[in-house]
């Protein structure tokens, strides 16, 4: 690899080929929280990053690569609307399952988190906690959001419900902290093994002196708390440090043109600029405007400046429709992934098709 490697991409050059724009930071789930007869629309975003340090995959010149699904027979990358979901019932024999069929299995739970029970946050057994999602208000409805967050936080209670996201059902605890609602998915009881299932040996009385010695060692290492920094990943820290050293020496540094942010998603759907989206959605009560993803859902036939402009005015008309109405249109057009789209995305996808 050459050192002092510099690279500038020419930008604003008309491209013949379709370009794939990685999925932007869109919510993983959009639906409604029901609390008694109060309902409030929310969006769910991940609260955990999947890896402590995210390295991008690049080619030898430093061009950031995108992960795509690929057909070995055709030797080409596929667009999202060429993909279907299948379940392998026998070797290489698949039953194709559509999104709307999955949703039909639990239409309420796919749309609604119905808080029928409230429990003490501290009562939930640690073994159950699985993953956290942050909830932001949708459709500008912030009052009911704030009301629920404040009353739950004041009482130290978590709302419990089950709901369906993508192709699975989740048990979930909704917890309020500092005015922000968080959904902690919990494991189902049947997913947790008991110590008996592991068949650990029968408890035997240990040697008293040995126990005492261990207690002493525990006391010697005891503190009242820990610092967040103790949970840092030393491996990631080393990579970041080495990267900074190399930057200071100007070694293996690649500058990208502005249109390619270095922090773009490494993998479809995984969001690196999540903080920005969260800040904006919490402040405005709706997700930020999504950039048009023309190439991801390509208009059939052609794609040029004219159709994009026409698409824009149509998008404005479509925005006046409710999500249900848009969903129906998306269903008629057989737009893939529509169940996961929020209102703005549905409008975008429908506009791009017509």
């Amino acid at each position, binding site marked *: 690899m050459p050192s002092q490697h510099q690279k500038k991409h020419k930008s604003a050059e008309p491209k013949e080929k379709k370009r794939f724009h990685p999925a932007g930071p869109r919510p993983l789930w959009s639906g409604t929280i029901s609390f008694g007869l109060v309902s409030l629309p929310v969006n769910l975003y991940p609260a955990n990053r999947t890896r402590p340090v995210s390295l991008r995959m690049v080619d030898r010149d430093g061009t950031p690569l995108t992960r795509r699904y690929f057909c070995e027979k055709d030797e080409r990358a596929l667009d999202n609307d060429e993909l279907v979901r299948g379940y392998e019932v026998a070797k290489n024999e698949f039953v194709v399952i559509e999104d709307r069929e999955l949703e039909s299995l639990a239409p309420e739970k796919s749309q609604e988190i119905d808080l029928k029970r409230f429990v003490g946050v501290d009562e939930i057994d640690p073994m159950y906690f699985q993953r956290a999602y942050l909830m932001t208000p949708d459709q500008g409805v912030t009052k009911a959001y704030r009301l629920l967050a404040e009353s739950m936080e004041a009482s130290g209670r978590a709302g419990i419900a089950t709901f369906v996201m993508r192709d699975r059902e989740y048990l979930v605890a909704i917890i309020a902290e500092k005015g*922000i609602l968080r959904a902690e998915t919990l494991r189902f009881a049947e997913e947790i093994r008991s110590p008996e299932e592991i068949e650990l040996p029968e408890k035997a009385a240990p040697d008293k002196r040995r126990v005492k010695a261990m207690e002493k060692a525990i006391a010697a290492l005891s503190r009242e708390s820990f610092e967040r920094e103790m949970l840092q990943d030393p491996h990631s820290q080393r990579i970041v440090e080495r990267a900074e050293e190399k930057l200071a020496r100007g070694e293996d540094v690649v500058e990208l043109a502005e249109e390619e942010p270095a922090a773009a998603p490494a993998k479809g759907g995984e969001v690196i600029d999540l903080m920005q989206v969260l800040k904006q959605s919490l402040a405005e009560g709706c997700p930020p405007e999504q950039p048009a993803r023309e190439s991801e859902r390509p208009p059939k036939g052609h794609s040029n400046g004219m159709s994009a402009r026409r698409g824009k005015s149509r998008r404005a008309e479509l925005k006046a429709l409710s999500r249900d109405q848009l969903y129906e249109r998306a269903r008629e057009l057989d737009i893939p992934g529509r169940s996961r789209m929020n209102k703005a995305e549905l409008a975008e996808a429908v506009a791009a098709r017509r």
Partner: protein
Amino acid sequence: MSAQAIWKGVIRFGEVSVPVKLYSAVEDRSVHFRLLHARDRLPVKQAMINPETDEIVPYDEIHRAYPIGEGTLVMFEQEELDALEPEAGRDIEILRFMPPEAIDHRWYDRPYYLGPDGSESAYFALAEALEHSGREGLARWVMRKKSYVAALRLHRGVPILMSLRHEEEVIPIDSLEPPKGKPLDARELDMARQLIGMLEAEFDPGQYHDEYRARVLELIEAKRQGKSVKVVPLRRREPSEDLSRALEASLKKERKRA
């Protein structure tokens, strides 16, 4: 059938060493789908594509780069990254012991039961010492080239390692601003709290079941047999316009039920 250990290590603090085996305390029961090419229904592979040329970059030509600042990447050779990998070892080092409330749920990742590896006496002494002290340990180790942090604690009297997310993986709530607006109505807040109080219950995980999973499996079976499947369109609820009225009606309904 007894469970299979996933790893073996030695817990160490002070002069103490306890050889243990790790067992996963949870199992994944989700139904896994594959993505297929719609045309021929064959599974697709993932590939890294150069977005400028739409060409596939073979795996051995892929480099890794760390994004540093706006629009700047620092590239790494695979050998450089290999050299930075955590050193393999069997030690599960306990950095300190703390009161159990020090680490809370936002850090929890996956729990592992610990069983003895050879010496049962050291293992049972550890369980008893943890119980007597009422403390839990902050553990660190390297398993399959990955660094782990965990809480060493007891679950129903059995030592476990509750693996924790690294600091970098958890978005700090403090860095976010909650939604703002006009001050909330005191009466509405009061009604909301009353409603929460009326819906209060013990956490009883046994009452919830993944009913959806069974339905997904039934759907797959029905489709396999070529049966037609009914599809109902979704309807999203409208947000409540009048919070006071919705809260009053909810309280009334709950009182009636009680």
